[in-house]
């Protein structure tokens, strides 16, 4: 393993982001228009190499602990990387790289690309930090880094819709992060520590039911769950997501739908075991079911391509939260299915947003009623969209089916077959709404205006095809995904090993 790989995986995109304005200035002086693109892509490829380098060690059963500034864990800030973190980090780095390659094609008509890449890399830094850190206040700081840069990115083009969506996300999102800060403050006042492993060790007496849980811990847990759920966009807190994903530049929609979904689900998966360890399964299951149903029903009647995809993000995240909630009730398959669905959903939802972006890039419209018949003009986009649509609806040979099927089994295993029935119904409704989307955009009559539409540029097609290949590959060989998800699920569940290795380790 490369020494210092954990911190370098955070520092590399961070300082690439800080150097980006300088690269922009130099590229303007020396007329190298593509310099920013290639610099960002190089930084992301470096990040993915660093993360991939850490993965075998973590899967070998170790928990990597990195002491920042040489201070050992309960006192200093440390990074702690277990199987769950490494799954999330791999997804963020991989999908982030593809999103950046896509934006090199998609943003080619925009000015101030250096600022765009700086903010994108900062958002990726925040996501990476959230999943790698082992300190709860550090988590808050990285969450804010990610959130603030995504507020700015959503409003990047400064048209009226983007500004409105940015304002809505800013207020709801910073309310959520304030709740998380409040929760961290209460936790610190009660326990006197900020290290996640240390908190877990000191709160273990309440977890085992030896003592009644004090009120401040309950308030802290409720605030933390609410803050995380605002970032995950479960149903009473979902309102920002549809607006933000509709109005943002499509690369940012893809970034927040793919890697951005990862961070919320990471904390949802961590929450039942560390640092609180109090039972939250019922909240997760009920919120998950509610978001699944509301998201898909809202998506059915949308006129807007990206808005429909955004409501499906809410609905599919409901599946993941539901699966993880079933996992806390004792169903291992449910938790594995939730994490596996995160892997699959991030891949194909990124791809679907990229298809929507390709259509928007070539036709200038994202309304269903203004499009139609594009299958002849954009065959590759239509094919990738078809793969994504079949995957998200859970049609068998594709990856979406595998994870959904495991969640169904988890529902039966946890003794809640009604949950399985609702999940199957939502899957059918998902198929219906994607049938509408495909027929409105790629089939049917082509209006005069769209007759000359061309296929998207190659730089945009490459990441889409990559993701389509991943979808088919995981669908045909689910063991590929299970090798990542299995260690993640066992690491999330095994909090005692996390605590002993972080506090006692190195």
């Amino acid at each position: 393993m490369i020494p210092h790989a954990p911190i370098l995986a955070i520092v590399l995109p961070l300082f690439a982001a800080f150097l980006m304005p300088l690269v922009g200035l130099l590229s303007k002086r020396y007329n190298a228009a593509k310099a920013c693109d290639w610099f960002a892509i190089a930084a992301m490829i470096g990040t993915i190499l660093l993360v991939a380098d850490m993965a075998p060690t973590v899967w070998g059963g170790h928990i990597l602990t990195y002491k920042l500034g040489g201070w050992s864990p309960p006192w200093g800030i440390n990074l702690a990387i277990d199987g769950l973190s490494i799954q999330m980090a791999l997804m963020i780095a991989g999908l982030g790289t593809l999103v950046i390659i896509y934006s090199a094609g998609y943003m080619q008509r925009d000015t101030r690309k250096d600022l765009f890449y700086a903010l994108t890399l900062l958002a990726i830094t925040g996501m990476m930090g959230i999943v790698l850190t082992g300190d709860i206040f550090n988590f808050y700081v990285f969450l804010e880094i990610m959130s603030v840069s995504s507020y700015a990115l959503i409003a990047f083009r400064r048209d009226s819709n983007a500004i409105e969506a940015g304002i809505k996300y800013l207020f709801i999102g910073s309310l959520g992060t304030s709740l998380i800060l409040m929760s961290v403050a209460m936790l610190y006042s009660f326990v006197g520590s900020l290290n996640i492993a240390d908190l877990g060790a000191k709160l273990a007496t309440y977890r085992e039911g030896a003592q009644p849980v004090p009120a401040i811990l309950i308030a802290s847990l409720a605030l933390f769950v609410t803050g995380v759920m605002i970032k995950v966009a479960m149903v009473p807190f979902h309102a920002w997501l549809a607006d933000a994903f509709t109005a943002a530049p499509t690369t940012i929609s893809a970034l927040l739908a793919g890697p951005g979904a990862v961070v919320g689900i990471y904390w949802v998966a961590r929450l039942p075991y560390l640092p609180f360890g109090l039972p939250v399964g019922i909240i997760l299951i009920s919120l998950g079911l509610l978001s699944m149903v509301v998201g898909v029903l809202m998506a059915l009647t949308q006129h807007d391509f990206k808005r429909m995809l955004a409501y499906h993000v809410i609905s599919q995240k409901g599946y993941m939260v539901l699966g993880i909630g079933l996992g806390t009730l004792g169903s291992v398959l449910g938790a594995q299915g939730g994490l596996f669905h995160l892997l699959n959903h991030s891949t194909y939802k990124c791809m679907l947003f990229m298809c929507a972006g390709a259509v928007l890039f070539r036709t200038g419209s994202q309304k269903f009623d203004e499009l139609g018949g594009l299958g002849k003009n954009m065959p590759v986009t239509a094919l990738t969209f078809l793969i994504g649509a079949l995957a998200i609806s859970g049609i068998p040979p594709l990856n979406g089916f595998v994870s959904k099927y495991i969640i169904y089994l988890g529902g039966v295993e946890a003794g809640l077959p009604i949950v399985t029935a609702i999940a199957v119904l939502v899957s059918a409704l998902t198929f219906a709404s994607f049938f509408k989307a495909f027929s409105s955009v790629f089939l049917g009559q082509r209006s005069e205006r769209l007759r000359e539409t061309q296929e998207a540029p190659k730089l945009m097609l490459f990441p889409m095809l990559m993701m389509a290949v991943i979808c088919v590959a995981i669908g045909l060989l689910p063991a590929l995904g299970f090798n990542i998800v299995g260690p993640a699920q066992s690491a999330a569940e095994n909090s005692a090993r996390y605590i002993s290795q972080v506090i006692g380790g190195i």
Partner: protein
Amino acid sequence: MNFNYTIAMLLIALGFYCLLVKRNLIKLIIGLSVMTDGIHLFLISMGYRTGGIAPIVTSELSSNLSNFASRAVDPLPQALVLTSIVINICILALALSLSIYAYRHYGTLDPYKLRRLRE
């Protein structure tokens, strides 16, 4: 000491009220910062001890470190609050800039009229 916590909770409640009720973006921003300031006050008063001294090691205190440790207030919440203040400056600046653009596009700062994206 309970006085501090009361004021902190009052500030948080005021901020929440302002966020929910006021119909002006600038007032919403003020509400948000009042709320976070309440949280900061909560954090700061958590680390305070009655009759404590500033957690700065000077030459006369360095000879008797255990005495210093028993009297100094907790410096960690202060560091946390400083970090949080920095973050909130970023949010404040971004919110104000977005409000400027919102005023230009919509001609109003009323959040009830910023509703082109719905359903």
